[in-house]
C-alpha cells in the first residue's frame, strides 16, 4: 500500500462519518457523495470495508429500509459515539490542516 493511500485511509473514516452525519445513506449513495466532493482515488467499493470497520467500533449502525428506487437498502446512521468521534476528528483536522497546509506550500515554493 502506498503512503498516500495509508494517509487517505485514516482520513476516509472522518469523511465517511461526515457524510453520514448529514443524513442516513446506503453504501452506493455514500460512495457517490464521496466522489462528488472530489475524493478521486477512492474506488467505490472502498466504502464497504470502511463501513464494517466503523460498525465494529460502534460509530455507525445500519438498518434496512425501503429506498427511493424500491428495494430495501441498508441505511447507515451515526451512533452517539460516532457523533463524538466526528467532533474529535473535525477538531483535530482543523488544528492540523492550517499548519500542514502552510508548511507543505512553503516546501513547494522552494
Amino acid at each position, binding site marked *: 500500500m502506498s503512503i498516500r493511500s495509508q494517509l487517505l485511509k485514516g482520513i476516509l473514516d472522518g469523511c465517511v462519518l461526515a457524510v453520514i452525519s448529514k443524513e442516513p445513506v446506503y*453504501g452506493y449513495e455514500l460512495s457517490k457523495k464521496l466522489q462528488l466532493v472530489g475524493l478521486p482515488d477512492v474506488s*467505490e467499493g472502498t466504502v*464497504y*470495508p470502511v463501513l*464494517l470497520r466503523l460498525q465494529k467500533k460502534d460509530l455507525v449502525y445500519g438498518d434496512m429500509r425501503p429506498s427511493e428506487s424500491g428495494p*430495501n437498502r441498508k441505511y447507515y446512521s451515526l451512533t452517539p459515539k460516532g457523533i463524538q468521534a466526528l467532533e474529535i476528528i473535525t477538531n483535530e483536522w482543523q488544528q492540523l490542516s492550517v499548519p500542514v497546509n502552510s508548511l507543505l506550500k512553503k516546501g513547494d515554493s522552494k
Partner: protein
Amino acid sequence: MKLNELIQQNNEKRKLLTKENEKYYTSMVVYLRTDLTLSEQHAEEVLMEMLDHMIAAQNEGKTAIDVFGDDPKSYAEELIEQLPQEEKRDMVKFIGQLTFTLMGWFLVSRGLLLLLFTSFTTVSTTVYMIPTLIILTLIGLIVVIGVKLIFDLIRRSLFNENESDKKDMIKAGLFGVVSFALIISANMFIPDFGSSFDFPASASLGAGGLMLLVSWLMKRNNK
C-alpha cells in the same frame, strides 16, 4: 433479513450481472463463504450491499474492477478482517446439526444394506462399542480434514487464473483414495473386542430416521 432469504436473493440478483462482473463478484462470495469462522449473517449482508452496488454501477457502464479495484483478494481480505466472527453457540449448533445428518444417513444406509444382504446371506448385526467408536471418530476426523483441505484448495485457486486446477484435482482425489483406504482397513484390521450389543436393521433404520428428523428440525428452527 433472514440468512436464507439473503442467500436466495443473492442467487437471483447475481443473474443480472454480466459474465465478467459475475465471475469477479462470485469469487469474492465464495472466498467469504468458505471462511467458516465468519458470522454468516454479517457476511451475507455486506455481500448483498456489494451486489446491489455492483448492479447499479453496471447500469452506469462500470466494471467490477472499477468498483472494487484490481485486487479482489486483498479487498476480500479487508472485508474478512472487519467482519465479526461467528458466535461459538452458532458454531456448536452447526456442528451438531452436521453430526446428526451424517450419523443419520450412516445408520439408514447401514439398515438398508443389512436388509439387502440378509435376504440372501447371513450377516452379523452385532456392534462392538469400542471399535465402532474408533471408526466413527476416524470418519469424523476425515470429514473435518477433507472439508478444510477442499476449502483451502478452492480459496487458493479462486483468484489466480493459472491452471493449477489439475494439480488440485489430483490432491483432492488422492485425499479421497487415502481416506477410503483408511476407513476400509480400520474396518478390517481392528479386532472385535469389548462390550457389544445386537443392533438389527430395523433398529438402525429407526435410529437413523430419528437423527435425520432431529437434524431437519434443527435446520428448520435456524431459519
